[in-house]
């Protein structure tokens, strides 16, 4: 029913735009990772040197490893907060469901930066938390380790990504046919048993999606470490950022970016496969 001209007219502009402003830039990132810098000048000489450096210098491997651990911790904590939240809303909230749902969503609209900043004012040595602890005479000196530590990065990222994790979990729980739950209870299963054998298995796709979100989003974060991480909370994206800035080694920075990109895409792919396999069982 649509003419050839119509189809061409709607397809061509987005294809050209995406090709020029998205595919080409990503391809350039890829190309840079095989080039080199000599005497502060970019040389277009194809080689694998950057990847060798990346995996042979302990400093990069170490930061990458720390980044993975931080991302894993964020994923775990967001699930720990997000799952019970989603479960409560789906099965126990009754008439307040819609309101509570909105309350979880609202912080998603609050600027990332604003939330990171708020935590900075809470955790600092002159911050609200230390002020409070001294006010109630719990401590007499400010506690320094709240801010500028991997702990602070995990806390801030967990705060930011809990609503993200909540969304797919809640959607998955809402899709569970209620008669299944009722049948399980009518047949004498306790609520713990019903949860473990009916609700949890059926919510696995949402759990996978939420966990993937949290892990992938944390993996490439460079703002939270800059805000609250300090030297001990540096993550891999901070290394990239410094290589593109003061250190001026774009090719090495590009090689690390390509690694982050590949990890991200393989995780997404893996989670999609797992989800499909689980659902088809």
């Amino acid at each position, binding site marked *: 029913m*649509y003419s050839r001209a119509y*189809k061409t007219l709607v397809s061509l502009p*987005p294809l050209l735009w995406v090709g020029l*402003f998205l595919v080409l830039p990503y391809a350039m990132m890829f190309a*840079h990772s095989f080039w080199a810098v000599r005497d502060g000048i970019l040389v277009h000489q194809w080689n694998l040197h950057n990847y060798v450096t990346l995996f042979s210098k302990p400093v990069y491997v170490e930061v990458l490893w720390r980044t993975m651990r931080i991302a894993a911790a964020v994923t775990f904590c967001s699930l720990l907060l997000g799952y019970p939240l989603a479960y409560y809303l789906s099965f126990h909230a009754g008439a307040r469901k819609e309101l509570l749902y909105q309350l979880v969503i609202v912080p998603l609209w609050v*600027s990332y930066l604003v939330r990171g900043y708020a935590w900075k004012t809470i955790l600092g040595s002159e911050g*609200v938390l230390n*002020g*409070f602890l001294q006010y109630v005479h719990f401590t007499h000196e400010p506690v320094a380790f709240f801010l500028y530590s991997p702990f602070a990065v995990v806390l801030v990222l967990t705060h930011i990504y809990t609503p993200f994790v909540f969304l797919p979990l809640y959607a998955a729980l809402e899709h569970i046919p209620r008669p299944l739950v009722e049948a399980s209870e009518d047949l004498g299963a306790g609520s713990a048993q019903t949860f473990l054998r009916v609700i949890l298995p059926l919510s696995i796709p949402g759990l996978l999606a939420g966990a993937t979100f949290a892990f992938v989003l944390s993996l490439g974060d460079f703002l939270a470490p800059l805000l609250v991480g300090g030297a001990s909370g540096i993550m891999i994206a901070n290394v990239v*950022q410094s290589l593109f800035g003061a250190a001026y080694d774009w090719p090495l920075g590009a090689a690390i970016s390509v690694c982050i990109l590949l990890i991200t895409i393989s995780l997404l792919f893996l989670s999609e496969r797992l989800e499909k396999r689980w659902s088809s069982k």
Partner: protein
Amino acid sequence: MSSPARLRRAPLLTVYVALVFIFIYLPIAVLILYSFNRDGVGGFPPRRLTLDWYRQLFADGAIWDSVVNSLIVAAGSVALSLTLGLLAALALDRARFPGKSLFRRLVLLPLILPGIITGLSLLMFAVFAGAQLSLLTVFLGHSTALISVATTELFAGLQKMDRAQEEASLDLGATPWQTFWRVTLPNLKLSLIASGLLIFTLSMDEIAVTFFLIGRDNTLPLEIWGRLRRGITPEINAVSTLIFAVSVGLIVIWYRVRTRGLGAQARELLERS
């Protein structure tokens, strides 16, 4: 949905969920509270409430310049992303071209990949193209990164649309162009408003991509970022509180639009039956 009789009490769970809500809202509450605190952003309890920080904020030219910059970039991004996103959604819905499913995944990349990768790729491209970094590069970056927001929403809208209306319009002699303006677009009104609002908010808040594409003129998040490095004052709390208020305002508007839209649809259904 479980009937009220099925709702069991779970006191422990309720307490836990209350604590999670406190965790989610604590920073926002602290932020707002300390924007009124005369003694600055730290310490406890906040004493001597004041509006001085807001007064200082309203006299702060640099902040308002950055707000204007952000509004320009966001408005531009809404226009461009919506246009490209609408065309892409129409293409995905109606046209056939090689690499279609690849294209679908490609437009999603900026939302999935860490912002730093998209930001740096675009930076390399800008350097390669010899473009001066400015609000223009930021605008191009935002528009490109946010196309998929519009595409996803509008594609869903198109899939739900009643195709017979378009067919009828074409059969009755309307040109494809008239059909597009009088039938297709009005049907997509809600999806357009929804994705427009989302793009606007995301662009206003964007920092990871902007970070690498910004020239001399700052957007609001980058202006705040710059100030954070120089030390923190409750003026930042004040501006953050205002951002929060505006965001919540936008959500309320969106719900009004949506529920009114749904109301209209329900009425239509009733009239038809």
